[in-house]
């Protein structure tokens, strides 16, 4: 029987993997097309002040834009798969290096942000669902709506004003790698991560509340109550555990969303992450860098979803054993 179990899980994962690969291929096509959609000559625009015929020719050859379209496409896909995303128009160094330089900062922010979001949303969402219709539920609902409605950059601006300028508790900007000094890292990551976390937490609170509500209305919860179980057992073993499955998806999506959405927060907090890199790249028309960043984030999105699927298979016997 166990061979069969493993077999079905493997089949499930194989399907998800194949699906991710298809979507990733689509993503690559879109990313590849980006630079070709630019009206006018991307190289001319990218060079700007640095334009000289020689520089132009050099960049043209270096970027491969002089070759036939299909050849460019396959070479782009080919090198992208091997981790070569071309060379930045702006500083001439490999895009991959640029991105990897920035990834730790963004990852720190995203992960800590997600943790903050979870710390807010899990208790708030469960509490509010279990107290549906009461005043505390209304408070959670309205404040989560509020959290969803506040522009994150505005919140960041307010946070800097309060915690940095007025109270002087935390630094308003800068990044210290975790490996260098964990304490300093934490001090620096706090404000931006809280900004990110509040917004993401507000969104997740709403999903968690809905998920818990849905589970709480399920037949098996009534069965559990009919057994005379303690409320804590019903809440955690029967409600929260089942509600965790959709929450897992949401947490995954949120992590991906944070990864791709921290641009403004990174700009506000001068955080040297991928978001700011993209922002600068957009200003500088550094198309290879934009392409690379978009591809990286989209690929991370797919990877996170894949991981969520794997976790699903671990948590849910219906998938594990079907």
């Amino acid at each position, binding site marked *: 029987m166990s061979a069969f179990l493993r077999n079905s899980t493997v089949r499930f994962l194989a399907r998800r993997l194949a699906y991710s690969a298809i*979507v990733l291929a689509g993503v690559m096509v879109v990313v590849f097309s980006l630079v070709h959609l630019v009206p006018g000559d991307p190289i001319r625009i990218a060079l700007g002040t640095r334009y000289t015929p020689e520089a132009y020719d050099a960049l043209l050859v270096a970027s491969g834009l002089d070759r036939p379209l299909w050849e460019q496409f396959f070479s782009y896909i080919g090198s992208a798969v091997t981790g070569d995303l071309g060379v930045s128009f702006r500083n001439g160094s490999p895009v991959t290096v640029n991105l990897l330089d920035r990834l730790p900062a963004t990852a720190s922010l995203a992960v800590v942000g997600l943790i903050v979001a979870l710390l807010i949303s899990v208790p708030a969402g469960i509490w509010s669902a279990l107290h549906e219709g009461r005043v505390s539920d209304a408070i959670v609902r309205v404040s989560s709506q509020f959290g969803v409605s506040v522009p994150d950059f505005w919140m960041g601006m307010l946070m800097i004003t309060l915690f940095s300028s007025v109270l002087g508790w935390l630094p308003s900007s800068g990044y210290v790698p975790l490996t260098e000094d964990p304490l300093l890292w934490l001090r620096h990551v706090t404000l931006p991560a809280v900004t990110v976390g509040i917004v993401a937490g507000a969104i997740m609170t709403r999903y968690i509340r809905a998920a818990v509500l849905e589970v709480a209305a399920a037949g098996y919860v009534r069965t559990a109550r009919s057994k005379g179980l303690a409320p804590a057992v019903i809440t955690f073993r029967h409600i929260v555990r089942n509600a965790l499955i959709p929450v897992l998806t949401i947490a995954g999506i949120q992590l991906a969303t944070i990864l791709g*959405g921290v641009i403004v927060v990174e700009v506000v907090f001068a955080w040297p992450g991928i978001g700011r890199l993209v922002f600068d790249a957009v200003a500088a028309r550094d198309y290879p860098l934009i392409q690379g*960043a978009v591809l990286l984030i989209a690929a991370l999105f797919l990877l996170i979803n894949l991981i969520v699927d794997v976790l699903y298979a671990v948590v849910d016997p219906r998938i594990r054993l079907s």
Partner: protein
Amino acid sequence: MTNMEPSLTEVEPQPPTTSRVASWRLLLSNPVTVISAIVLLTVIVVAFIGPWIAPYGINKTNVANALQPPSGAHWFGTDDLGRDIFSRVLVATQVSLKVAVVSVAIALGAGLLIGVVAGYRGGWLDMVLMRVVDVMFAFPVLLLALAIVAILGPGLTTTMLAIGVVYTPIFARVARASTLSVSVEPFVQVSRTMGTGNGYILGRHILPNIAGTLIVQTSLSLAFALLAEAALSFLGLGVQPPQPSWGRMLFDAQGFLGQAWWMSVFPGAAICLTVLAFNLAGDGMRDVLDPKQRTMLEARRKR
């Protein structure tokens, strides 16, 4: 108690009434929804008449009068060029709302088309369209919008287009899911067995029945579009000066955080309030449309 003969009539028991009239009544019975509707209405009215009721010209600079705190003459104070912030917030309503409405209209139009076609036709077309949507979905919203701006250059039109494009997959998914669930409803099956054409089925049965979901999604998307516009403008890539938009005003306020709180607080509050109103209204509508929530509301209303 066994022998009480009730007056037996031939009337069969009536199921509980669930009409659209009742939906409206339920909506109006929720004070939060009513308040958000009033806020939205006000915002829309301001969007139309803003330029006429604004006390000052929105681009009227008066450097000598710059950075004045809120006062009787300038309710929301003045900005770094001495322009009246109250007037600018009023007039910016139109720009911000226009961006939101146009981009959501783009997303709704494209998403509805893709979603309904995919959900109704099914088969390989569904497969292909949904994979395309999945691909679009894999891009984070703001990043994709930025990429589009990088291609087309910043500006009002680009902003609307970019936001429209990035929200299309959501509408496509919602429309497809609702279309799928409606098209397996027996009343659609009946129409098929009667030989009714696809046009009639789509127009008379499917669209009206997915409209509710789409209205909710539209309301929520308007909220997100407003935020996206603000974010793009905040990055200096959205609405361009001197045209005021709430996000652009926050962009301008960045340098004055310590000195002139009113420059960032009022446009920020305007965004927050409008987005909140769209979200709450959408939420209220969903509560009414969702049968489970609805019975709860009805029960509470009768208490």
